[in-house]
């Protein structure tokens, strides 16, 4: 399939490379020209603008930072679009913003899918991302072969915005999950009990989770290298809290967690992995 790909950062680059590997014909665009080089080396063609990345393609995919970036590149895509183009945004943005972008593209005759991912850089490189999609059945079917090159667990959740709602739900669970494991470890140490042993015991019971297993191990190793930077998790939790505010939805646990991540960014832990919330807890209780 002929695919345009916009945004070649930590996530976008390996995702695009997996599409090339899967035999698709890629046109790429990135704000910084040097980010395109690895893709050009792999055989992709460079576009001069988002509009050109859309031209002559059946599918165009964006992987950028925030809602204004998505809106901007999609404005270009709409200009370059041929009839029947499907545009897919895989960034994490607010559901309401995704719906608005979908409506704007529909006016230009472009079918839009919000398809944020979970699984981080490791999942992007391995092609094992979880992909949660919102949009029409027909557009999803058209994008599916591309999704299969980038991810494993691919779910069409519902209408436009549903993918972002799912991603926000994912960030609620992972945000509170990381905080829960960090609090359990802080609790164990303050009681003079070995964290490693606690983790091992808990893995066999109802407290088992992927976060306890993987993130828990990294906390024990004190390996705070990202992974998933805590400022990004803070950004995603802000999407959750803003949406809850607009809807009149009471989310006390998410609110408390969002404040912990807010404190991490404020105290200079923003560039570390989100498991560095453990450091914040240790500081608060004088365990440093």
């Amino acid at each position, binding site marked *: 399939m002929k695919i345009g790909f916009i945004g070649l950062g930590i996530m976008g680059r390996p995702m695009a490379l997996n599409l090339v590997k899967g035999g698709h014909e890629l046109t790429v665009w990135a704000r910084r020209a040097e980010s395109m080089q690895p893709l050009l080396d792999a055989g992709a063609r460079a576009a001069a603008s988002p509009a050109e990345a859309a031209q002559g393609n059946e599918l165009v995919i964006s992987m950028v930072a925030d809602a204004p970036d998505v809106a901007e590149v999609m404005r270009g895509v709409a200009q370059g679009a041929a009839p029947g183009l499907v545009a897919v945004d895989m960034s994490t943005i607010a559901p309401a913003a995704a719906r608005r972008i979908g409506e704007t593209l529909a006016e230009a005759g472009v079918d839009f899918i919000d398809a944020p991912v979970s699984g981080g850089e490791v999942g992007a490189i391995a092609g094992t991302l979880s992909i949660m999609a919102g949009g029409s059945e027909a557009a999803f079917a058209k994008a599916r072969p591309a999704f299969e090159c980038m991810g494993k667990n691919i779910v069409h959740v519902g209408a436009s915005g549903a993918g972002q709602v799912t991603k926000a739900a994912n960030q609620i669970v992972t945000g509170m999950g990381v905080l829960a494991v960090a609090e359990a470890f802080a609790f164990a140490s303050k009681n003079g009990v070995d964290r490693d042993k606690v983790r091992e015991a808990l893995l066999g019971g109802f407290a088992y989770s992927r976060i306890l297993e993987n993130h828990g191990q990294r906390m024990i190793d004190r390996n705070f290298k990202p992974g998933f930077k805590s400022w990004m998790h803070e950004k995603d939790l802000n999407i959750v809290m803003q949406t809850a505010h607009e809807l009149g939805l*009471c989310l006390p646990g998410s609110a408390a967690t969002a404040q912990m991540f807010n404190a991490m960014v404020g105290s200079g832990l923003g560039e570390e992995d989100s498991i560095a919330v453990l450091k914040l807890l240790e500081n608060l209780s004088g365990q440093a």
Partner: protein
Amino acid sequence: MNVGFIGLGVMGRPMVLHLQAAGHTLHVWSRRPESAADLPATRCATPAELGRRCDVVFTVVTSSDDVEQVTLAEDGLIEGMAPEGVVIDCSTIAPERARHIAARLSTRGIHFLDAPVSGGAQGAIDATLAIMAGGDAAVLERVRPLLACLGKRIVHIGPNGAGQVAKACNQMIMVAAIQAAAEAMHLARAAGVDCGKVREALAGGSAASRVLDVMGERMVRRDFAAGIEARLHHKDFGLVLEAARKSGVPVPLTATVAQQLNALMAQGWGKDDTASLLRVLEA
């Protein structure tokens, strides 16, 4: 003096009357012309027209967007007011939006003060509002006699935006205190104790506060008719949390109270008093 006024709701209306009673000539504009019907003031067709007639213009509207609309949009104050005119915004909006509006107005030589108020409808009627001003100190001195018609305590906090920061602090403390009063009343009632007696006793001790006085009284009487509509506090908490986030400042209690306000909105009590936080606990 020719004084303009935009926003004639529960706060704006009594403020207009005080300014008029002090001998000023009032010009008003409102989105719905009927809200100006019985006021002793000249009605203007647009904010720009009002701006042409006035040296000082007050705005008391709801959101950051509303203030930006009446000041900066087409037919806004910026198109009508002469250099050295002063816009005094008494709305509660985001500090950075206040700074933005001030900067845009200053390109035409128009001064801007962010001057949010605390004291509610009763404070507006009694002319006892607390006014927290951000902007140039000399400009504040020029309009201080006007503000003195509206409020008792007028404090210059700092440059543009500083007034809105102070108002955010005010809202954090006030609504958290309402939540605390609601929880205390809820606990007293659940334990089979007379809430009125508890409130009366507490008013004499270290827990005494204006909120316990006014909101606590409403909770005891179960009178949830708005003084201040809870939806406005809900809106303000959105601003506070956004400001905290931008500064990387953790505000755990504020965040928790914000969730109770979200629940209040979901129950459909947004137009009732914020004392309804008690009803959220009972729901």
